[in-house]
């Protein structure tokens, strides 16, 4: 990432060029921008078609889905229905499942960012023996498929399960069939990628910044919270979105570690149960897919400004 900016000797930035050059440049760029818009639009359309197909299908009758293409529904006199959404939303326990998904996903996302950021800070800005070796191991762990860990971890979980009811939220306190067990598992599975991503961003921050802070007597904690975290907001918000999505859409870990506890089941488990054989229940699945997409998309739009505006560009000025 760029940190050093060319500037003219008198200190003004180069952007202050003669007006004529700028005007010519703008005109040239406007003419040259047509292909840019066209290709971008084409990709946007291509990428949206399957989602639109999913959306249209979710408003169609099961018979119609199986007999004609989704594009017929938006061409003919609209034979759209909200029945599918009604079926999903009226299903007993759907509200609880949505609540469960939130309870499982939010702490898992926050925990991953905190734990990974601490480790990444140590990997990036502290010197200690075996640092490179440890980091290599971390990279290697990226490739471990979750399925491979399920049996050994489940065996451990059944040994440490605390069989008492967790107040307010419900479920056990820890182990199988507990929210806390899910938080810990999802945090652990998210860590290798999170540490890898953050180590890269932290490592690319300018050294001068750290050295002057240390010279001023700032502690590691202060540097971490006042310099590293604010400057890494684009990376952290990107990470937050991905971790949120992965946990939100996870089915496997929930199936295994919640052990069929219906009160704790998140949306994914609930929907899978609802669509007992999804070969014949497309319409329920498509509607459920859109209901479960709603919250992740809200989060995406909420966090988007962080990596769209480019906080990094503005804040690391020498």
């Amino acid at each position, binding site marked *: 990432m760029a940190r050093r900016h060319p500037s003219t000797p008198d200190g003004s930035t180069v952007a202050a060029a003669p007006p004529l050059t700028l005007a010519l440049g703008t005109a040239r760029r406007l003419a040259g921008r047509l292909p840019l818009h066209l290709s971008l639009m084409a990709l946007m359309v291509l990428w949206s078609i399957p989602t639109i197909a999913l959306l249209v299908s979710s408003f169609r009758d099961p018979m119609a889905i199986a007999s004609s293409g989704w594009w017929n529904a938006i061409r003919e006199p609209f034979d759209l229905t909200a029945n599918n959404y009604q079926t999903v939303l009226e299903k007993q326990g759907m509200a609880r499942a949505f609540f469960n998904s939130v309870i499982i996903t939010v702490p898992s996302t926050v925990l991953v960012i905190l734990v990974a950021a601490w480790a990444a800070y140590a990997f990036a800005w502290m010197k200690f023996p075996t640092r490179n070796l440890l980091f290599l191991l971390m990279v290697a762990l990226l490739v471990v498929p979750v399925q491979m860990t399920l049996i050994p971890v489940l065996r451990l979980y059944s040994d440490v399960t605390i069989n008492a009811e967790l107040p307010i939220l419900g479920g056990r306190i820890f182990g199988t069939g507990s929210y806390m067990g899910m938080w810990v598992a999802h945090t652990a599975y998210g860590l290798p990628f999170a540490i890898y991503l953050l180590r890269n961003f932290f490592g690319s921050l300018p050294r001068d910044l750290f050295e002057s802070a*240390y010279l001023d007597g700032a502690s590691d904690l202060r540097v971490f919270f006042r310099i590293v975290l604010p400057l890494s907001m684009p990376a952290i918000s990107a990470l937050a979105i991905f971790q949120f999505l992965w946990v939100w859409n996870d089915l496997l870990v929930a199936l295994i570690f919640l052990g069929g506890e219906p009160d704790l089941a998140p949306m994914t488990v609930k929907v899978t149960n609802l669509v007992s054989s999804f070969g014949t229940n497309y319409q329920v699945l498509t509607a459920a897919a859109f209901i479960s997409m709603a919250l992740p998309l809200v989060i995406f739009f909420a966090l988007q400004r962080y990596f769209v505006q480019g906080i990094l560009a503005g804040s690391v000025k020498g």
Partner: protein
Amino acid sequence: MVGRRWWTPWLWLAPALALLGVFLVYPVVDTVRRSFLDERSKSFVGLDNYRFIIDNPQPLVSDTHSALLNNIMWLTLFTGITVALGLILAVLTGRVRYEAAAKSSIFIPMAISFVAAAVIWRFMYEFNTDIGTVNAAVTSAGGESTDWLRDTGSPQTWLTERGPDTMPRPIQINNLALIFVGVWMWTGFAMVVLSAGLKGISTEVLEAARVDGANEWQIFRRIIVPILSPTIVVVATTLVIQGLKKFDLVWVMTGGRAKTDVVATLFYKEAFRVGDFGVGAALAVVLLLWVLPIMVISIRRFQFQEETR
């Protein structure tokens, strides 16, 4: 920092190391051990499980060669296309007024769960042109309807002795069709991370280059790509690893039928369906071995970063 005690770094690392140790390192060690044991993890069998993968004695039940070849295809095509598209989109979307809308439309597939994505893409690839979007588009353009997910019968056994005479068409259309779904889902990831990196490039640098008469291609090639290369490496590494351990998508779309198995799905089948934990564990270890080149690249990169910052 001068006053740092020797145990300070370990304090910062402790939570991460503890979690990784229990949830990832311990299962890995356990799996490596089991890869040298028989199917019930009772007696030592040496390298028999690995020999099973190399000899491919049961190509109809668990075609290890096909899975290995497919993994290579996922690794190269999925990673290459996704990184290239993500980079192009990160640059293009940053230059238009409707950046938020453009990014959202590319990103939305990431928010769809695998099960829903599989459902919609089975519709997209449906053979019947009245239902299947892709085939409807292909036929209206004058092409022929294709059963995208079927085994096209292209020989994928070129690693065996039958190889040479069946060499020419080792790649099946159904694997490409699956890889495209992967690209569709993951381009948003590449775009968002690369875009976060791109925002770190100061606008003054780009403006200065433009004022100096550089065209957009030169700016892309000479300024954006070099400055962005650390981020590109991160994205590519993540995608290589995603391609390596691809499981969900293949599992929900084809279940590994019609020669679409990859190593991760075959591992799952062997360990949990066939019930041969030895071969399953050996397949998982093969996956782990593939990460070695990535580790070498990473360590080089970090040494470089240390020296240059």
